[in-house]
């Protein structure tokens, strides 16, 4: 609790310092808006209903990317766990997944999937599929043999064992991978919109930047950062509870 308060205090202090620096002219107003203006701009955006119109397609794509990453990653991970030879062959490749600049594939995805939500969902899910699959494997590697034997005693087949035993056992590990997948989905979708998309938050941020519309630009940035932070804190709390329950904390 004290730690969380300390963390919030540091963020608040940085914001106040920025506010002071801009208001006293240490930093040019043309470069950065003071935080109070950002908040005011954000409130205006929300009040006019514009915010929701800009954010809806983005959030829809992010949600779809997360769902695809989690479901795809779980299926992929289970397949790799079931086939040690396949796993030995491709796990080394997967382990360097975070080093791949996935945005280089974005133009290709637009060519294949057309300009619309699909390439955004794909680029938003690409990283997450692998992080979820790898974290699932990591959890499954720790599954004790007696638990698997118990499942066989109960007469559970491969699918029932996956659903009732393997996935619940690996859940805290998967959650760690899923957290990365959520962050990657926001980065992928908004970044993709920024490069090329008909609408969405990333597109709006790029337009505001081109139009020198600082209040809009910073209002949107503040919004994106707040949403991502809130989602991550929620996931983090959930992960911690799960790990405590399991004595993994």
């Amino acid at each position, binding site marked *: 609790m004290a730690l969380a308060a300390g963390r919030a205090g540091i963020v608040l202090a940085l914001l106040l310092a920025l506010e002071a620096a801009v208001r006293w002219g240490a930093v040019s107003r043309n470069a950065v808006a003071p935080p109070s203006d950002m908040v005011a701009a954000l409130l205006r955006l929300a009040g006019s209903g514009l915010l929701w119109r800009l954010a809806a397609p983005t959030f829809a794509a992010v949600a779809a990317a997360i769902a695809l990453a989690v479901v795809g990653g779980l299926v992929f991970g289970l397949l790799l766990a079931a086939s040690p030879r396949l796993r030995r062959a491709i796990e080394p490749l997967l382990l360097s997944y975070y080093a791949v600049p996935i945005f280089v594939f974005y133009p290709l995805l637009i060519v294949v999937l057309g300009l619309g939500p699909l390439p955004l969902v794909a680029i938003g899910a690409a990283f997450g599929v692998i992080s979820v699959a790898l974290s699932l494997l990591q959890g499954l590697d720790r599954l*004790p043999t007696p*638990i698997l*034997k118990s499942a066989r*005693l*109960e007469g*559970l087949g491969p699918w029932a064992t996956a659903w009732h035993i393997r996935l*619940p056992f690996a859940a805290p590990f998967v959650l760690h991978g899923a957290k990365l997948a959520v962050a990657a989905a926001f980065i992928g979708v908004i970044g993709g919109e920024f490069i090329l998309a008909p609408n969405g938050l990333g597109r709006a941020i790029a337009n505001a930047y081109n139009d020198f519309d600082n209040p809009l630009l910073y209002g949107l940035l503040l919004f994106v950062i707040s949403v991502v932070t809130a989602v991550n804190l929620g996931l983090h709390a959930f992960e911690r509870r799960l790990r405590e329950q*399991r*004595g993994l904390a």
Partner: protein
Amino acid sequence: MEAHLRLEGVAKVFAASGRSAPVPALGPLDLEVRRGEFLSIVGPSGCGKSTLLDIAAGLLAPSAGRVSFEGREVRGATPPGLGVVFQQDASYPWLTVSENIGFGLRRRGLPAQAVADRVEEAIRLMGLSAFARAYPAQLSGGMRQRVCIARTLVTEPRLVLLDEPFAALDAQTRLLMGDELLKLWRRAGATIVLITHSLEEAALLSDRVLLMSARPGRIIETLATGWPSERSSDLLTDPRFAALTQRLWTALAPEARRALGLGSEAA
């Protein structure tokens, strides 16, 4: 009378892996468990007791021989009516104590109320009432083992195989759990096969005790205890208990020495 569980010529050799040679772990041995009896199997550590249990439960294919339960061959799957408690902790860490114990009952499609009633009773019998909503990570090793025992017994198997179930318990709890097991055995009329390394436990609880040789384990002796079925840890002070334990040790000591690589000269 037909045997409840029968092993004929059962042997297990674990295949060579990498540079290590094949491991002859068990047998060949014959074994007959009578319906309704309390049978203990005692042997030095590493002699193949857990391997024997896996084979009997259909979890591991023997290299030779066959297993039958209630007259039907056991092959590749555990037959219904056969329950197992493993040597190592097999509790499900994502479920509470009562969810763990109810797992098998729910899968059998019992109505929720019936599951809850039976789980509650099992929890009470195992002395876990204060921990019904706790997760295994919050329990001691001995308590987790009691969860596993309850999870198996609550499904009312006709034959229960227990692999050193009390190893993680302190001496007093061990005696109490032994008494509880005897009570359950009398009440349920199930057949019990208890694997243990404790001569005292075997002498106290069983109708018959089988002694196994060092690896690859074979049956070297079978002893009937002659206890009445109404028995308990009160027998500890009975002179017959001391004599029985003595006899078991006399038969087992050379094997225990062999398992440790100590040679066979008298100590």
